[in-house]
């Protein structure tokens, strides 16, 4: 039941965050608060479903984001979403993680994701803002949205993904 639901739901999340959510962000924060709901879903996959599922989700949806909104260059989101989601799974897979710890991990992951994306854009000279400015202008406010979203979907995400991991271990046995 779960694999059947996780992918379509994440696709829906991707559609929403690129179309509906921008309309909901209040005017003064537009262009500053950026929803990374799909990335949060990939991190949840890393926490509760295993590192390979996380890598798969991060890679596929990062690629989608990269190609659909191809502006400066390709590959930033594919690499970062795949790598950070995999890393989360690699370090924390199979451990019992309470809700607050999960939210902290997701916050840290989102911070790492935005900062690394800024780093890549800076290396390729696509942006010339200072890190302090980007941090205050977009990374920090976005973090609140991501954590809020993570809190809102914590229960359904855990239920969907954990059952999947249990099922796959059952199959292995």
């Amino acid at each position, binding site marked *: 039941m779960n694999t059947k639901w996780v992918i379509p739901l994440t696709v829906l999340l991707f559609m929403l965050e*690129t*179309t509906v959510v921008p309309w909901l962000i209040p005017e003064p924060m537009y*262009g500053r608060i950026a929803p990374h709901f799909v990335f949060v879903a990939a991190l949840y996959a890393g926490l509760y479903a295993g590192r390979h599922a996380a890598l798969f989700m991060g890679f596929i949806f990062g690629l989608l984001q990269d190609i659909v*909104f191809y*502006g*400066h260059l390709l590959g930033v*989101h594919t*690499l970062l979403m795949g790598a950070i989601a995999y890393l989360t799974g690699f370090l924390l897979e199979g451990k019992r993680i309470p809700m607050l710890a999960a939210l902290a991990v997701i916050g840290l992951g989102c911070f790492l994701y935005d900062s690394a994306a800024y780093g890549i854009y800076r290396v*390729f000279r696509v942006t*010339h803002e200072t890190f302090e400015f980007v941090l205050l202008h977009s990374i920090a406010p976005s973090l609140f949205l991501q954590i809020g979203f993570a809190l809102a979907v914590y229960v359904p995400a855990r239920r969907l993904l954990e059952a999947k991991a249990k099922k796959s271990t059952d199959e292995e046995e």
Partner: protein
Amino acid sequence: MGRVSELFRIFRNRKLFVLLIVLIVFAAIMGFSLGQRDNLTWPENFVGDSVTFVQQWFYKPAGYLAGLFEDIRTMRDLYRENEELRTTVARYARDRVTYNRIELENERLKEALAFKERQKRMFDYEYVIAQVVAVSQDPLNPTFKINLGSTDGIRPNMAVVTTDGLVGLVSRVFPLYSTVMPITQLNSESSGAQAISATVMEHKESFGVIEDYDAQRGMLVMNRIAEDDPLSERDVVITSGLGGVYPYGLVIGTVETRQVGDFGLTHTAYVKPSADFDRLAEVFVVVPPDLGEETP
């Protein structure tokens, strides 16, 4: 043989090896995809177009709903706005008469000076309406997608405007949709740097190049203005059409301040963009007339 086995020993940790390969591949992809590309490969075209095809079902209804709430909130402002629009229409009607007369005269003079067909059509820009169908969620790559693509004659670097002024340049073109990069992403340091040559409506001889955006001040930076240039504050900046990439006469913004530039030889002006980059619903792509193979 010995050396090869030593190499294997370093990479006995298979994960490290894979990580290295992945990093190299991604660095190559990023570098390769950075510059200008006129044609995308078929996987990019397929993925981009099919996803955007679905996205367009979401963006517009959401916009209508948001607009509905906005309308209720701004009901009070409507009277004032209506009043302003009335005076604008009156002014427009008056200008229209002058315009018709000048256009006829212009036509006659061109005829008298034996303009060639190509020269006559030089400023015949076509404004093609396009709907915005999705917005990127990356603040450092804030592209948006419009529902026109290469099959509609869209090419990279075409100017995209709203009724207020220039908003962006077409960045990548898929068969049915294209991505537009807002002019807030102009950057003179990047390898694919684009510069818009500009002048002001008040002084025809003014010249400057808009090639940067100052995100902290929210203003475009217009460089290379000559010291004796008559450009002054509150002038309306328009594209000059020099260089042939961008059309002539698109409104960009108004001059806020003017100061001596970094090297002291030329002046720099800060230009407040006149277009609103948030929550776009409809934009116009400015398609220059097809003048044969001489123009790019």
